[in-house]
């Protein structure tokens, strides 16, 4: 089974984790100002790259904390994990 390194607990089995999709999607600053197109983009459109992807995971059956990871969607290899309050590692992009 794939091991995922929780930044708080270290490597644990994948079944302990819950997937949260693309990371770094901020809630709109001024929701009232959004057009329908902007809302559609915020609610329904997410990146879907074949390659490195910055995404959220939650250690649901462990410390129950959310964190971010960079994972290659082709090999499923985790390239980086980092805490929510840490910046996205510079060496990889989301696309």
């Amino acid at each position, binding site marked *: *089974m*794939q091991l995922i390194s929780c930044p708080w607990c270290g490597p644990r089995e*994948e*079944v302990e984790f*819950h*997937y949260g*999709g693309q990371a770094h999607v901020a809630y709109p600053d001024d929701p009232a100002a959004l057009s*329908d*197109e902007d*809302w*559609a983009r915020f*609610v*329904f*459109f*997410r990146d*879907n*790259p*074949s390659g490195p*992807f910055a*995404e959220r995971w939650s250690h649901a059956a462990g410390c129950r904390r959310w964190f971010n990871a960079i*994972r290659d*969607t*082709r*090999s*499923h290899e985790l390239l980086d994990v980092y805490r929510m309050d840490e910046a996205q590692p510079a060496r990889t992009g989301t696309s």
Partner: protein
Amino acid sequence: MTTDRRTAVPPGADLPDHPSFLWPNPDPAKSYDVVIVGGGGHGLATAYYLAKVHGITNVAVLDKGWLAGGNMARNTTIIRSNYLWDESSGIYEHSLKLWENLEAELDYPILFDQRGVLNLAHSLQDVRDSVRRVNANRLNGIDAEWVDADGVQELCPIVNVSPDVRYPVLGATYQPRAGIAKHDYVAWGYARAAAAMGVDLIQNCEVTGIDTVGGRVRGVRTTRGRVAAGKVALCAAGHSSVLAAMAGLRLPVQSHPLQALVSELLEPVHPTVVMSNAVHVYVSQAHKGELVMGAGIDSYNGYGQRGSFHIIERQMAAALELFPIFARAHLLRTWAGIVDVSPDASPIVGLTPIDGLYLNCGWGTGGFKATPGLGDCFAHTVAKDKPHQFNEPFTLERFTTGALVDEHGAAAVAH
């Protein structure tokens, strides 16, 4: 369905390898009226109906691998049209009607077998949703009935309908005209017929770029050179986002691994198709005798055509809960495809903001059953530059207007 044809061995079907002699293997020409990206079921069916119905034969189907080696080769072949909403009923029932005549249409045996599908209900809410769906189906002229637990047992004696299980079977919806077909033969039937009408089927030809000039598509770049095209139709299933991005288009789909598995070959034990959303497994028995099972997607995005083993474990546990007699069957093989899942679990089929570029994606875990219907409607869309009535609701714009076709929980949607 013609029984004599069903038992006949299709040309090439007795061979271990792809029967490439059913169609020529040409090099790409410099230009085509229509280039279809993706040689799965959808791309091949679209090419067939473009040629057959619209007389457009200067067409190429380009695939990065071998023909129909993507989800078309990996799906569990469930065919049904018992979806909840009118929009879905339209396109899936159109497709089912085409399935019913497809062997004759293609003059090729596809082992289409209307053995019926049971969608089990395990809770009061399941029962209410199921009965509602039966009524909605009937209003749309789709065969559907509600059967109680005894009825389930009568239709499929090996289902455990004991009340002493965690998720007892309270009943099911039943669509008698639903069934299965042999996916490879469907692909080969369409490929052979399309090639015979002049369509170029080009394998090992990956599209790496889409050329546009002034908002109009001009052609594609491939690993085998540039190919000019009047129109480009995307049928890339799990890779749709990657293709669309080449034209600067962002799609509201996420690509996930979807796994399935088969047992060793067994005597016929399972006469129908059984699906359960609550226990989360679905099972049929293929013509050869293997039990074919699947369940839900792996949660994470993935392009690797493989998923995690705990998903398989859960799937087997669910299968044993419903079918205790499977306990002694052996798992033979597991695999995965890449499915393009949309936010409302409905497809996206139609025009794009780029002239001459047409989009077919978002079928996720359930597009095999749509193969003939989608092919017909998408060919119409490409030929007339206008959606067919049955794909008109399935625009990309619906995510902005809010006119979603939400088939998530409502339609027992899985496959």
